């Protein structure tokens, strides 16, 4: 088993009705439950605040976030266990963020054994 991180990209959409948002949350819970039940969920991870700063270069220039367009902002991450990248990608396809036009970035976590 290898570890992967899922980076959830894309801010929650501004247009949905309260009811739709609630239904959307139910889908997330179901998705995580399924990942967990099959032994793929190493860590739920954390949501990230939208605010923040970027510190850049040798001059240590500090600029305000957000750092990208709303659709690219990383809103949170989780740690996943999967056989290989192909399986991690397959599992990510169930992520409800995709239904709202968001994206999941699947990145293998580098381990020493390599």
């Amino acid at each position: 088993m290898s570890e992967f991180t899922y980076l959830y990209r894309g801010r929650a959409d501004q247009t949905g009705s309260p009811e739709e948002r609630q239904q959307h949350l139910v889908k997330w819970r179901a998705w995580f439950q399924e990942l967990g039940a099959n032994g793929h969920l190493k860590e739920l991870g954390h949501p990230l605040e939208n605010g923040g700063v970027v510190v850049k270069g040798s001059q240590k220039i500090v600029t305000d976030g957000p750092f990208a367009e709303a659709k690219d902002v990383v809103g949170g991450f989780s740690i996943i266990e999967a056989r290989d990248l192909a399986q991690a990608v397959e599992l990510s396809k169930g992520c409800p963020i995709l239904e709202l036009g968001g994206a999941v970035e699947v990145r293998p976590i580098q381990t020493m054994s390599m």
Partner: protein
Amino acid sequence: MASGDHLFRHQSGRMVAALTRLFGIHNLALAEDVVQDAFCRALEVWRIRGVPENPCAWLMTAAKNRALDVLRRERTARNFAPELGRWIESEWTLAPVVEEYFAPNIIKDDLLRLMFSCCHPQLPEATQVMLILHILCGFSVDEVASAFVSSHAAAEKRITRAKKVLATSKRLFDTTDPDKLSARLPAVQRALYLLFNEGYHGASPESAVRAELCREAMRLAAMLLEHPPGATPATYALAALMCLDAARLPARVDASGHLVPLFEQDRGQWDQELLAEGLGFLALSAAGSELTEYHLEAAIASHHASAPRMEATDWATIVSLYDRLMTLRPSPIVALNRAIALAQRDGAEHGIAAIRAITEHDRLMAYPFYSAALGELALRCGRSRTAGEHFRAALALARNPMEREFLERRLGACETGEVPEVCNKRM
């Protein structure tokens, strides 16, 4: 949080209510933005960390913090609620004042104020209902449009216009002034009644949408009952009629999704708890001397509810209640229902004559159950060809697949010459 508990929807109204009192109702759009923002935050955090122990409080805190940001940023640029006055000018007073506005017992009153605000006399009744659904019940414009079988553009136009009317006043409706309150109470009761009816008899094809509208109307009526000046005998009667009618909802659609008319419903499926609650409200509505259309409709519903079998229904009393309803609030729909009850009391031919005698029956021409009623009665009189013509006319007006399917079955009954069992009893 279960998928069916509508927490977000209900919390939306509570947050808008608190925020409009804080910002002033002329800043309704700003309040709605803050609520959207709180929901976005909730979605982003909860989807990963799960729903917190007290989701309502979490959302309310998110809205409150965002409101503080807005007040700080815009306190010089915008006018907020007049009574907020100088309190927001200083950091010393800002946070405690906002905290007070978000106290749970206060928010309950705010919701009621918002409900009364939505029933603004300059707005048509149907628009008031849409506004209540949108602002208080958290339905999106699309959801309102689908509930009223209207286009998104049409619903949006009405809601936008209505919000402009609300924005002409600065404050939420003052529910502490008893004269003002009792002057507007009938409009509020009427709006809740129409909301319920839209769910119960409306054209929306989805039975789920319809049940939701009924539930929302009942929730708001319960809210009105919790507030002493709103809990008048008429409000009790309104709540009674909602409970008694809603109790029949589980039997209105059978296991295969077919519409089942009252006469054929399995009465064992009626919701006994709601029936009992409805009868309790009906008893409370009898205080005082006021007799409203809600009293009469609730009384009619209670007679249906207390009949163990269709044949045991006290049609004579129901007809007389409809007679009184016709003097109090005449309408072609009431007249049609009266005629159907009359057919049960005196026989199908009398029912047909009563339907034919309805003044303004042209207003019923677009309503499929006008022709359907004529068809049903013709069938009972053994005139299956005439009945078939009526059902065909009704079919052309069917508003959703469920009605279409029901009318097709009735049409099928005409063609096989099968006379419904219910008819032979009283001919």
